[in-house]
């Protein structure tokens, strides 16, 4: 029994960063803005979290700093995709490349090659988990209520599903999308910050290693609902927990084969549940009043 619980503990711990990432992506995509760039946003969140907390000496200030920086990143993302109506996939890819470049460069410039210098405090633990884990689970519940039981949530989903209707009642589609993108980006950034502050308490180059894409897969796999996304994230968390288990057990399977598991699992999940039709109808289509939609 103890080992089952221990396994679950690892599952939940290692999936929390992906959970934040996925919930942020969920909000953005429900509002109609596609986000391939979560990988870069998480990386920026992870880095700025470490910077903020090593400057202030407080891990929460670090998380706050990450929120601000990724909020600004989201604003730029919104400007490119909503105002300038640029191809959302390509802007996302550019963001991922930018995230890798800027964090690696700044990391070397600020901290040098010595990885010990970025060692920062971790979050407090309550019971088996640290506080952000509970915040993540709370967020799943709050988001479900917010998106499906409030007027505001309805407007967000409307902007992604049928923007014309939102516009015809005199509301500003692009303003709703901007707010969703910035809020979503901040939550994604929190996922990155959790990775560097909660999971590991240091930054390493390119540490997100595909989690942004896995989070996106989880949103699709979870059928665009908060609870579904959470369950999907737990499946991927189980993949990562299996990696640790197999590595610890040293059962003779080569390490590299074990490390493939989460990625293989994602491919299988997307293939098994990746049917379109659950996604918002206007996902990826920029809105403009004058043009026929």
């Amino acid at each position: 029994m103890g080992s089952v619980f221990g396994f679950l503990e690892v599952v939940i711990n290692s999936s929390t960063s992906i959970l934040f990432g996925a919930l942020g992506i969920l909000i953005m995509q429900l509002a109609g803005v596609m986000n391939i760039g979560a990988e870069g946003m998480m990386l920026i969140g992870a880095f700025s979290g470490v910077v903020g907390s090593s400057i202030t000496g407080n891990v929460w200030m670090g998380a706050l700093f990450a929120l601000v920086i990724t909020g600004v990143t989201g604003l730029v993302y919104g400007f490119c995709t909503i105002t300038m109506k640029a191809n959302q996939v390509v802007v996302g890819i550019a963001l991922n490349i930018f995230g890798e470049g800027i964090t690696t460069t700044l990391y070397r410039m600020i901290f040098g090659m010595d990885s010990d210098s970025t060692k920062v405090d971790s979050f407090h633990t309550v019971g088996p988990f640290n506080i952000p884990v509970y915040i993540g689970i709370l967020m799943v519940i709050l988001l479900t209520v917010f998106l499906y039981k409030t007027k505001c949530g309805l407007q967000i989903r409307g902007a992604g599903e049928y923007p014309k209707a939102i516009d015809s009642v005199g509301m500003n589609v692009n303003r709703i999308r901007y707010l969703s993108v910035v809020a979503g980006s901040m939550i994604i950034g929190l996922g990155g910050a959790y990775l560097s502050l909660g999971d590991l308490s240091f930054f390493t180059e390119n540490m997100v290693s595909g989690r942004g894409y896995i989070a996106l897969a989880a949103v699709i796999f979870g059928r665009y609902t908060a609870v579904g996304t959470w369950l999907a994230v737990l499946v991927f968390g189980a993949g990562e927990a299996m990696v640790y288990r197999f590595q610890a057990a040293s059962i003779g399977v080569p390490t590299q084969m074990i490390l493939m598991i989460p990625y293989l699992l994602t491919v299988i999940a997307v293939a098994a549940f990746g049917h379109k039709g659950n996604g918002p109808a206007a996902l990826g289509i920029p809105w403009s009043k004058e043009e026929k939609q």
Partner: protein
Amino acid sequence: MNMKKIIKPVLSILLALLVGAIVIAVVGENPLDIYRSMLVGAFGSKSAVAGTLVKTTTMIFVGLSYGFAYKCGLVNIGIEGQLYMGGLLSALAAIYVELPAPIHIPLCLIAGFAGGAIWGAIAGWLKNRFNASEMITTVMMNYIATYFVAFMVNGPIKEKDGTYPQSERILDSARFPTLVPGTQLTIGILIAIIAVVLYIIYWKKTAGGFEMSVVGSSERVAAYAGIPVKRMIITSMLISGGLGGLAGAAEVLGVQFKIMDGLSSGYGFDGIAVSLLGNNSGIGIMLSSLLFGALRYGGNAIQMFTSLPIAVIYILQALVILFVVVDVFRMERRK
């Protein structure tokens, strides 16, 4: 019209360099010094030019790879993985098959193409069969491929006498002959140029290329016109993957002469920028490959002679992509 085609990428590059300069200044280096050492590093001597052209070779293959899928409406973010699988298969052919050079080199190239093509086609098949977004599957398959290659060079094909996780050196008969004696420049660049020519012919002159571009602009229209959409998708991913595989083969046969863990340092992602900046056209891809080749090779000089890491060029690359796609000057906007 034609002027715009040239002005837009040039302005995008200039803007990217400008914003990049601000970033460099913020981290406390002199942007002019950095750009100068990059320029000298890329073109300052005969061997520098050769080095730049070697990187250009890789850039052409990855650029063509992204462009080929993009023209069919597909987003192949998995070039990195296709490069690794192509590199692996061509290395196997180059190490373990003994043949005279005129046959051995083509065989290794075919093996490289096949390695990438299989990897790309799997994503195409998953899309056709299960409606799985290729954007996610190809990224995941990058990780799977790099881990698989890491597994191979740590175990099954690890060199006999040596401690590094790398394969044996490839046989001499599989090595690309040198083009300019005393430099790194090999016939790889010629093979890349042949690939560009074939790319242009395919998209401009063949029925298959036309049908595929119809699929790229609208799957629905293509289906109405009786074009086999699914077959086009899988063919496109196959060839796109194959071109990515050739990038790996060129790296193994012309640069590293073995395969190891870090065969590519993110070249697969460079393909996206190369292709977008070149507007997915053959000539455009060739020109932007030269730019990114110079950036890559000149980037080494930055790493060596200044305190900045080579990752700076990722920032420049991302900015170039952004300025191209965001259309800052509203050149493509309707009146």
